[in-house]
């Protein structure tokens, strides 16, 4: 048989050809760009990452000073991006679950309210909401000098929320070890008790014991003086409050904007998932004498979860990418830090390559995690 008529061989050739074309295009673009940059005497390369950053970042989750390197500054931006997206995804999912179930409620008032919530949030661009939340915060709350003293040590102003902070004075390591061990054994106990309940059909005190295992050892440690805690109380400085935990309005506005938009998407996904479960499931569960809320929790939601996971992945990817709107309201995320770096070094192509690489990498990580979870909960067909 002629090799040219072999389907597999031809497919192989087409694929090699396609890959070659893409590689050639990429190489041409790269070569032309570096050639043009060199002709215009524009500096290239990633050497600038090691230079001193020299600028202040107001919100840092990891230690950072202006004398640190540009690479470190970009890392601070990445951590800020991850922090706000992660919190928005978790809180938004919980809120969305609630709203989605409320949309299915038989109480017309609750169902309509949930519908209005979803429609209002889904049909206006997120950027406008960010401006709205931010303007509301800085216009509604008083300047920091007239900060509202909500509770002792808690101050609310248009510079954000300042809270007393707890910190571990001594014994941090042993506390962390005990908490980790506690979590591990609690999970183990809970699993064993669930297994036993399923096999024997009798309820047991597994959850209670797990809670005890989680809470008692750290409390004992604290009672015996193994660890001690200190309070960092905010103090009025000349201009603003110093010390304590500072939640900035930029962060709050961004978190709110993102989590509300996540909640609206999740609500619709949850509703779709629930409605996809056939009425027979409801009727069968009701015939067993289960209350409506238990039908939802024990029968419908676990089945709906399989349908919910894939669109949920999209929502999480969207919230992660949308966090780059932070730049509009002054939250120092990856894009904002990169912009400053770009301005100082003038190396736009490299800096954009870095932040595109980071977004791509983290998005793929989110997809992989969600796909793994999806494979776990998916219906196992044999």
């Amino acid at each position, binding site marked *: 048989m002629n090799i040219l008529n072999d389907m597999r061989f031809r497919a192989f050739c087409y694929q090699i050809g396609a890959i070659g074309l893409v590689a050639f295009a990429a190489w041409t*673009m790269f070569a*032309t*760009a570096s*050639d*043009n*940059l060199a*002709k*215009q*005497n*524009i*500096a290239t390369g990633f050497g600038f990452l090691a230079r001193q950053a*020299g*600028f*202040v*970042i*107001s919100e840092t989750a990891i230690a950072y000073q*202006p004398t640190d390197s540009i690479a470190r500054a970009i890392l601070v931006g990445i951590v800020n991006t991850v922090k706000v997206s992660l919190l928005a995804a978790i809180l938004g999912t919980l809120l969305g679950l609630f709203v989605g179930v409320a949309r299915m409620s038989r109480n017309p008032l609750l169902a309509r309210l949930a519908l209005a919530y979803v429609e209002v949030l889904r049909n206006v661009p997120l950027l406008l909401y960010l*401006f709205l939340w931010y*303007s509301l915060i*800085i*216009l509604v709350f*008083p*300047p*920091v000098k007239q900060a509202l003293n909500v509770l002792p040590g808690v101050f609310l102003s*248009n*510079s954000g929320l300042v809270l007393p902070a707890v910190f571990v004075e001594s014994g941090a390591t042993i506390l962390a070890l005990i908490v980790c061990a506690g979590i591990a054994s609690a999970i183990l106990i809970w699993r064993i008790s669930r297994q036993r309940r399923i096999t024997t059909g009798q309820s047991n005190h597994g959850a209670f014991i797990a809670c005890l295992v989680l809470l008692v050892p750290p409390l004992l440690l604290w009672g015996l003086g193994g660890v001690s805690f200190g309070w960092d109380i905010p103090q009025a*400085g*000349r*201009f*603003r409050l*110093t010390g304590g935990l500072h939640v900035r*309005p*930029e962060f709050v506005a961004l978190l709110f904007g993102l989590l509300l938009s996540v909640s609206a998407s999740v609500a619709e996904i949850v509703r779709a998932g629930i409605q996809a479960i056939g009425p027979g499931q409801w009727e069968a569960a009701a015939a067993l004498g289960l209350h409506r809320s238990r039908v939802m929790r024990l029968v419908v939601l676990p089945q709906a979860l399989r349908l919910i996971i894939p669109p949920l992945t999209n929502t999480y990817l969207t919230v992660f990418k949308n966090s780059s*709107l932070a*730049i*509009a*309201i*002054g939250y*120092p995320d990856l*894009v*904002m830090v990169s*912009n*400053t770096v*770009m*301005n*100082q*070094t*003038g190396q*736009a*192509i490299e800096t*954009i390559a870095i932040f595109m690489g980071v977004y791509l990498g983290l998005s793929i990580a989110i997809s992989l995690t969600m796909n793994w979870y999806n494979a776990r909960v998916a219906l196992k067909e044999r």
Partner: protein
Amino acid sequence: MKHGFLAICAAATALLATSVAQAGTLDTVKARGKLVCGVSLATPGFAAPDDKGRMQGFDADVCRSVAAAVFGDGDKIEFVPTNINTRFQALQSGEIDMLSRQTTQTFSREASLGLDFGPNVFYDGQGLMVAKSLGVSSAKELTDAAICTLPGTTTAQNLSDFFRTIGGKFELVVFESPDENRAAFFAGRCEAISSDRSDLASIRAVANNPDDYIVLPETISKEPLAPAVRQNDSNWRDIMSWSVWLLMAAEEKGITQANVDEMLKSQDPDIQRMLGVTDELGAMLGLDNKWGYNIIKAVGNYGEIFERNVGEKTRLGLTRGPNAQWNAGGLVYAPPFR
């Protein structure tokens, strides 16, 4: 952000897709029939459209002087508002012929961004503005305060350096858009706002009650603003530089927009050369010999441009200060025309 990003993409695409033409910018501009000049996004006093849609301002008039030198008509020009992040890319990629956008001349910009700066047209410095009610009289008292700025540029770095020298800390709040930046400051999110002093005057001018705000006395950096062109086009750079110097020399010699026609009869050999009555200075740059006359006829001299756009009678109310002529105690000094 959106425009910024699009412009970066456009610039990157231009870099990627085409081999940048190294032909003379003068020929390109002449063939096109107009000069394309990058200016600020609406900044009163430097570049902002008036109620008839005509671009007004100090930077805009610098552009017009070059257009007048090339075409004999200061209005053969297209203004492109450039974002602070993408101004250099716009110039590098050939989207604009020159950049006249409150841009500070610095070593690293000139050395690594593929551009050449012209003469300093405005000696500025970074300052801080606060509300009078704050009761602060020096920037050194601002330790622990929150300060609003625009991203990047040299502003954030100068502030960091300043507070490092005085051993204090501060909270930096950075906004992408000048409007958000101003709004946050006026709403009290920050105690102070920091930018070039000329820009602060412009921000103060749009406050509900400008008298409630003061610019603190410290100048924490040198910001000599200069127009720029792409590197490796020395003829085009000469045209830009000498157009600016002609504005300065005209003020020194007392040539104004109003009296330029009479000055054509002047017996002063310097004036005769500048206005193209004798010698052929214009031809040496590839321009019309009346180029100097055309510039002054179109925009007036340096002093007139200053007073019209940012001077004491305008809302910005800036005094000449270091921008006075060298023989009046300032730094404005044009080399001789001969």
